[in-house]
């Protein structure tokens, strides 16, 4: 009897051990709420819509694959999105709601520089991780360690873009630049002006306008009186850039056209018309159907188009990539705690939708918080986006030497 009882215990123990080996204790399924901010209405709405769609694409992929496995837990991702209408005041309100009401620890997605500054007044003291596509120079810095820019900014793009223009089109001497009169716009103009002057080109006009402006005739009358060879609609969002080029064309401008911080040229062509949009060069946009881009981007583009019936612009790709990088860093850290994820984030390059992505930028921002990847200069020809050449931002060149 004693022997039999002992044998039974051994069997039970063996069974438990076997079960434990064959099927480890089921990972607890939790929900990870991630905030998305952006202008979902108003003149810059295309930015916000793309941010949200990029986030939806990646989070749905993760959820459909069973969730995000981090350490011993599996997280379903839930997005909480708010519209700030490109207003800094509304952005601060939305950030407060996300951080204090919804208790999110990650905000992945925001656009328009002044709104990023507003959001950072909430996220940095609360150590909330914040990824954005704002082009404000001071959106990155050692005083903002939890903030990351997930697409190239004017500081990475302007110098190589104008160097390329100078080499390929030496007849272009006089440059005019126009941007919105907020943080993103002013900083973009500053970067363009620095690049133009650094390359010994002649800056004949530097103008700004109020976001939401529809009639650019008055500003263009002043600009075109200076007879520029190239008009750069630097940080204008697609709809406004389209209106500027349409009206410049109406006022007789037939020179070269640049769009240093240009995103989504498809929208620009729709507004400007094929003729006025002809020949626009853009260094930060991405053509998801291009031979220059990583096959992952082409796949993303196909699925995006199938889902939303539109071709994605660079902001959708950037936020998809940001979600990818942040969730990979969570897995690498084995935790969703922001301190651990922060340490993991900057430790290595990532294989992403952009191809190999490095987080750098210390030379410009005094901290490595800028996503760096190769950029492709494209041109609008007959209403289509044609890629011309791939160039590397100087910061990426330095890191990959």
């Amino acid at each position, binding site marked *: 009897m004693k022997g039999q009882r002992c044998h039974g215990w051994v069997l039970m123990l063996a069974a438990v051990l076997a079960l434990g080996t064959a099927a480890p204790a089921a990972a607890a399924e939790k929900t990870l709420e991630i905030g998305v901010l952006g202008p979902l*209405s108003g*003149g810059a*709405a295309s930015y916000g819509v793309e941010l949200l769609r990029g986030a939806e694409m990646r989070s749905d992929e993760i959820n459909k694959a069973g969730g995000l496995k981090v350490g011993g837990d599996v997280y379903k991702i839930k997005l909480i999105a708010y519209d700030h209408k490109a207003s800094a005041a509304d952005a601060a309100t939305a950030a407060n709601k996300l951080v204090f009401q919804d208790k999110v620890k990650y905000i992945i997605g925001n656009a328009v520089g002044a709104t990023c500054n507003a959001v950072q007044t909430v996220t940095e003291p609360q150590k909330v991780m914040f990824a954005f596509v704002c082009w404000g120079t001071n959106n990155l810095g050692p005083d903002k360690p939890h903030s990351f820019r997930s697409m190239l900014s004017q500081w990475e793009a302007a110098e190589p873009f104008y160097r390329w223009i100078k080499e390929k089109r030496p007849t272009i001497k006089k440059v005019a630049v126009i941007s919105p*009169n907020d943080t993103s716009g002013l900083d973009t103009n500053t970067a363009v002006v620095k690049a133009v002057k650094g390359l010994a080109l002649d800056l004949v006009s530097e103008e700004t306008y*109020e976001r939401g402006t529809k*009639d650019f005739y008055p500003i263009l009358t*002043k600009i075109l*009186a200076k007879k520029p060879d190239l008009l750069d609609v630097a940080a204008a969002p697609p709809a406004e850039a389209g209106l500027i080029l349409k009206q410049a064309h109406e006022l*007789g401008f037939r020179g070269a056209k640049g769009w240093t911080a240009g995103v989504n040229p498809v929208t620009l062509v729709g507004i400007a018309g094929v003729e006025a949009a002809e020949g626009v060069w853009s260094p930060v946009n991405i053509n998801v159907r291009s031979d220059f881009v990583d096959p992952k981007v082409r796949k993303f583009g196909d699925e995006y188009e199938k889902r939303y019936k539109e071709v994605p612009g660079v902001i959708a790709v950037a936020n998809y990539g940001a979600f990818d990088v942040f969730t990979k860093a969570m897995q690498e850290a084995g935790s969703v705690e922001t301190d651990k994820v922060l340490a993991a984030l900057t430790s290595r390059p990532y294989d992403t939708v952009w191809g190999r992505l490095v987080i750098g930028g210390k030379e410009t921002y005094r901290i490595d918080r800028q996503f760096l990847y190769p950029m492709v200069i494209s041109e609008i020809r007959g209403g289509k986006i044609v890629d011309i050449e791939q160039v590397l931002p100087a910061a990426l060149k330095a890191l990959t030497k």
Partner: protein
Amino acid sequence: MPIELLVQALLNGFALALVYVLVALGLTLIFSILGIINFAHGEFYMLGGYATYFGVAVFGLHYVPTLLLAIGAVGLAGVVAERLIFRHLRGKTLNAFIVSLGLLWVLQSGAQLTFGVLDKPVPSAFSGIIRAGRVIISVERFVVVLAAVGLIAVLYGFLQWSRVGRAMRAVAQDPDGAALQGVNIEFTSMLGFAVGCALAGAAGGLLAPVFAVSPPMGALPVVKAFIIIIVGGMGSLPGAVLGGLLLGTVEGIGSLFFSSAAVNVLGFLMVIAVLLVRPRGLFGAA
């Protein structure tokens, strides 16, 4: 400064101001007849823009009949708004003010939900430019100016010489007196509201191919319209035209010397100056 630049700046200012005069005329007509300041007036401008977008860009109709249909459709929307809402608020200035603000948000949010948030381009029926020396205007804008002037003239003729137009003026001057003379106040008010909204719709339809359409597109024209009617005098049609021309001059010339943000302020400075010197506006009744 070259004279051509000055002429170009004035032309830029006048071209748009004349369209904003249409919006202002609608606003001031509604105020005169119903005693209501309709803050949702810009949304009727937006509806005119979207009606034109659907006619031209979606259904492929020609621009001119589409514009006429858009004007009619927005006028009809005005009839609905008057019968359902504003008829019950005639003379109740504060109530009408709150309700019109509510209507503004309902129409704008409804447009966002229905049409989406992105700008939608409307193909232009007119291409090319007209050049006089170094002064340029696109054929598209020239047609817009002609149409705006034409509509202002038609409105003037309608109010001056048609039986219904005279009834509207009578109701605007003295509703009780007009009623005693046999004028149907309710019908005249409804018609006045519809004509006012149709004018906003016409402006929206005229500028749709020039600027594209979007849900918040009515915000700027209605601000300009308020500047125009405060300067010109509330309830005065000639005042609205003069206010528009003054705004066009100030903004056109101002744009040569100041940034776009500062130019927007110039209109409000003009309002302050006029209100200090002549509180009822240039042509307003005492």
